[in-house]
């Protein structure tokens, strides 16, 4: 053991210190990889945790809840049928969950909880903040009274008795603060953006008289199963009973594809860092072959050699991962900001703030960092253990081995590509494209393995080209790279991976954007759109139905299309139901149906059959097609509707069932609207009509009025916001790859010191040596760029036609974002050459006699 400690100190740790720069680059690479992984994981975790915590606190002691499955609300008369719950030792309380916007000073969307203030204390006990206690406990039952959370009250300087104007749907209502909740518990959920009011007040201001949208139940644990079963049997159509956690599970389910894809992307930086680790460890082994040989000759067993190198990797892995954890926690705040808007807009309807630094998530990222470091170090470690005592010569042996092996690697690549091809044809596993991601990884790995062979061929072509452009230095640079084929291959492969991922994603996003752009151009045909303010952040916000009638009177308005949409559950999965005016659709709509059938034809058929149309993601998720039926669990029983057509739509990955108002009215009582689309007379001026609308609605109605162009731009803005974080992830992956290039260049410079020394003796200037290293950097950048582009295009096919399709069910038309690709190409070239500056300076400073004496 003492011997091992001696070797550890003098062989392993001293080497790390002596090669500080190389160790630092590797540690930096691991750090960035782990940081990104952790930041994304923490952001994902926080988004879900915040939702779950809010559900937990708002649910309080509730262990069962009754919800409408495919409607906005339920009739409160159902409460009269639940008295038997008392006999089971349980309680129940009606709830109306809505949203409001603080009309002044903007704090975004507020969650409004309307509860029965008489009986709800059993479900959601809360405490008053200091000075927040109501003057009169019964005042909450007065008109327009509410309780606020402490933070919100503090932010706005509210006290008991203060007035608070709230924008509820399309009207401003004046409320009076009747009490202020203490900072913890209920007062802190939704980031403090919770307002509590008596259910009767909520029903009035939201125009939900006699209706509620949830019933919370507390049932003794030993009776839970029986009560749940009895409720399931006796509840009327359109209602379901479930545990409150299920809402968290549903959100987790909705977020899964988004989060898993983001997580897969966050692994790229670490994957690229693995090449860096492999490279560093290989160099470490190659440079010390004579030492290993000597140690072996002195009787050091193979396993001890392996242990020494593994420990070297472990030290770098642990240091890099620890630093990565620190940076990751900092970056998580940025990542949360990056995903918050997407998560809020598309999934949970609530903002994500702060970072929930979960020890489990942090530890997982740390161990993944250390684990992958050791995994990447394994091949060089085995290489070290295989050094024969008599074989302790230098690099030449490693490089000749690379040449020997490189002949066999294409066979392995072909096998990997065949596997990738097979995997790309496999179905998703529980909605996640596991095989699609595996196919990407196998494809990339296949290309990384043929890299030595490809480079050998390319160097032959490149040499005369570089000689032509850069003279002897150009040719010598190519020869230098060729002489270190193993190292060059790893550097180019790591850059290839990072660039390929960026290119493939850029092509996918570019194609997706182009597809959405065309879809928006074709599908958004109405001239003016009217929605409640903040509807983009919360789709439950509504317009008063009477507005529609007023708008129809305005001169220049040809057609009014009232529409409504709300989340439903379909086959146990979240989905959306939308209602529209099919008569208007038939005349003015321009939906693009999968089978190319004209909109008018499909819609007229749907009007006749009183059927439905569905979006492509819905069809994909539920395996439903044209001619099949969809079954809606409505308040008035099951509605079986014939699917008359499936159309392209990119508004929601959960998909939509769209039905005409006539069908809706047969099964539903709610008459609220999500928005109104207006089609103007030919020649009517949209700006003039818009002014007329503002006048017609009067000062009391607060709505968003958008022109067709405005809405089209808005859709693309939300699209860009959703994908902003993916670009950030790729910038970091490329940074790690550039670190790889720098590392490779340092190594090449260190290993070429003898050559530089000779060149100095025979008359090479420092400038010529600097130029050679910069050319090498440029050649590495160029090769990585081209390889990355080629592999990137292949991956983009997998992304578009397999991964994205299986995750979201969208058909995307292939398009190439040429601008972005050219910019990325140039940026990488410049960065690669810049990364060569320091190694070039180092090379130019080579002291010729000293290196020749050493060598």
């Amino acid at each position, binding site marked *: 053991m003492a011997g091992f400690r001696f070797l550890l100190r003098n062989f392993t740790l001293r080497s790390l210190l002596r090669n500080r720069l190389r160790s630092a680059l590797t540690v930096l690479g691991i750090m960035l990889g782990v940081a990104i992984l952790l930041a994304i994981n923490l952001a994902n975790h926080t988004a879900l945790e915040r939702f779950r915590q809010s559900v937990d606190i708002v649910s309080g002691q509730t262990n069962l809840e009754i919800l409408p499955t495919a409607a906005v609300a339920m009739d409160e008369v159902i409460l009269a049928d639940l008295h038997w719950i008392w006999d089971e030792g349980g309680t129940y309380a009606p709830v109306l969950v809505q949203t409001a916007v603080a009309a002044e000073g903007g704090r975004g969307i507020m969650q409004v909880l309307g509860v029965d203030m008489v009986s709800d204390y059993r479900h959601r006990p809360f405490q008053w903040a200091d000075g927040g206690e109501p003057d009169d406990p019964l005042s909450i039952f007065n008109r327009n009274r509410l309780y606020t959370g402490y933070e919100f009250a503090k932010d706005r300087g509210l006290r008991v008795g203060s007035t608070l104007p709230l924008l509820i749907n399309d009207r401003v209502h004046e409320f009076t603060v009747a009490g202020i909740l203490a900072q913890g518990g209920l007062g802190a959920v939704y980031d403090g953006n919770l307002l509590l009011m008596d259910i009767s007040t909520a029903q009035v201001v939201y125009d939900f008289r006699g209706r509620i949208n949830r019933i919370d139940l507390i049932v003794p644990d030993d009776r839970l199963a029986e009560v749940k079963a009895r409720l399931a049997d006796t509840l009327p159509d359109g209602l379901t009973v479930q545990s409150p956690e299920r809402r968290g599970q549903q959100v987790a389910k909705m977020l899964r594809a988004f989060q898993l894809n983001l997580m897969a992307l966050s692994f790229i930086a670490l994957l690229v860092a693995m090449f860096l680790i492999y490279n560093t460890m290989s160099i470490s082994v190659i440079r010390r072959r004579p030492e290993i040989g000597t140690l072996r000759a002195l009787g050091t067993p193979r396993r001890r050699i392996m242990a020494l190198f593994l420990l070297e990797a472990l030290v770098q892995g642990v240091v890099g991962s620890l630093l990565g954890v620190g940076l990751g926690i900092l970056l998580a705040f940025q990542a949360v900001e990056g995903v918050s808007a997407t998560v809020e807009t598309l999934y949970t309807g609530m903002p994500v703030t702060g970072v929930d630094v979960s020890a489990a998530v942090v530890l997982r990222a740390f161990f993944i960092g250390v684990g992958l470091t050791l995994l990447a170090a394994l091949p060089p470690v085995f290489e070290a253990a295989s050094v024969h005592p008599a074989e302790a010569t230098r690099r030449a042996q490693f490089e000749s081995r690379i040449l020997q092996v490189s002949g066999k690697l294409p066979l392995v690549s072909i096998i990997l590509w065949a596997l990738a091809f097979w995997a790309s044809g496999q179905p998703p596993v529980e909605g996640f494209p596991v095989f699609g991601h595996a196919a990407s990884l196998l494809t990339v790995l296949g290309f990384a393995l043929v890299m030595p062979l490809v480079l050998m061929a390319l160097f032959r072509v490149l040499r005369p080209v570089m000689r032509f452009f850069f003279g002897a230095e150009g040719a010598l640079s190519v020869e*230098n790279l060729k002489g270190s084929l193993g190292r060059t291959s790893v550097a180019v492969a790591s850059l290839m991976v990072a660039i390929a991922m960026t290119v493939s994603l850029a092509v996918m996003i570019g194609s997706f954007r182009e597809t959405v752009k065309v879809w928006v151009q074709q599908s958004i045909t109405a001239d003016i759109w009217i929605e409640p303010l903040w509807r983009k952040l919360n789709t439950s916000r509504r317009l008063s139905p009477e507005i529609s009638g007023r708008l129809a009177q305005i001169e220049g308005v040809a057609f009014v299309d009232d529409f409504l949409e709300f989340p439903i559950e379909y086959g146990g999965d979240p989905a959306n139901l939308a209602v529209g005016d099919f008569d208007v659709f038939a005349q003015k709509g321009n939906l693009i149906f999968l089978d190319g059938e004209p909109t008018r034809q499909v819609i007229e058929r749907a009007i006749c059959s009183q059927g439905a149309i569905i979006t492509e993601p819905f069809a994909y998720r539920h395996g439903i097609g044209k001619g099949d039926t969809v079954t809606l669990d409505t308040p008035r029983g099951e509605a079986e509707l014939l699917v008359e057509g499936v159309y392209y739509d990119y508004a929601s990955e959960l998909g939509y069932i769209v039905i005409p108002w006539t069908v809706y009215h047969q099964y539903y009582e709610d008459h609220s609207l999500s928005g109104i689309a207006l089609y103007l007379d030919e020649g009517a001026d949209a700006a003039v009509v818009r002014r007329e609308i503002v006048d017609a609605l009067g000062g009391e109605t607060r709505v968003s009025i958008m022109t067709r162009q405005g809405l089209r731009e808005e859709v693309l803005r939300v699209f860009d916001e959703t994908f902003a974080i993916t670009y950030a992830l790729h910038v970091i992956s490329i940074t790690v790859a550039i670190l790889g290039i720098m590392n490779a260049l340092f190594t090449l410079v260190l290993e070429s010191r003898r050559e530089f020394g000779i060149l100095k003796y025979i*008359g090479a200037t*420092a400038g010529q040596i600097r130029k050679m290293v910069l050319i090498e950097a440029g050649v590495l950048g160029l090769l990585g760029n081209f390889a990355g582009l080629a592999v990137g295009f292949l991956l983009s096919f997998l992304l578009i036609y397999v991964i994205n399709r299986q995750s979201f069910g969208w058909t995307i038309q292939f398009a190439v974002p040429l601008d972005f690709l050219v910019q990325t190409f140039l940026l990488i070239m410049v960065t690669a050459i810049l990364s060569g500056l320091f190694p070039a300076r180092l090379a130019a400073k080579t002291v010729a*006699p000293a290196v020749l004496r050493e*060598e």
Partner: protein
Amino acid sequence: MTADPKIQLENVSKRYEAHDVHAVNDVSLAIAAGERVALMGPSGCGKSTLLNLVGGIDRPSAGKIRLNGQDLGQLSDRQLTDLRRERIGFVFQFFNLLSTLTVAENVALPLELAGNVSAAEVRRRVGEALEAVELGDRAAFYPSLLSGGQMQRVAIARAIIHRPDVLLADEPTGNLDSENGRRVMDLLTHLCREGNQTLLLATHSEGAARHADRIAHMKDGKIVGIETPVGQV
């Protein structure tokens, strides 16, 4: 000896402060054009350091070195590089060929780095140089396929391709058997005579030193004696 020596060393010293070593200590020596001088002495006596100082690879701590009357101390690094490129050829003990280049490419390097010679001229002179060292048929070979003696002949061809005034050879036979060593020294001597080149040779080998006109014996960085070899080759 002529009045204007090709190489003139005046009280040249080289001290490595970090190691507190006087590698070369107050050496004065004048070498005429076309003269062949061998530096002999044990390892570490300062022979190689002296060659590096003369070649402008290193700068003396004290004293002056003149080449063709030009004080090397007055030249910038760039001018020293130009000087090496145009007027000096190096031959090393371990040949120092670039393994990734062919024999012809190795020989052509000094001209390629100079960049002012046409491709046709480079080809012609490489051919000449290789013929001169009797390796015309090995032009396309890589160094790893040559014997030690052949590699040293390639190194000599590389050292003379740009027709330098001065050849600096550091233990050129140190890595060769005696027969190959003799042949390399015969070749070097022959080429120097033919081109009227000045040769400064650092060696352990008495056999190699016998090819010189004078032998300077060195010890602890100093020249402790100069002799004319008996039975000069």
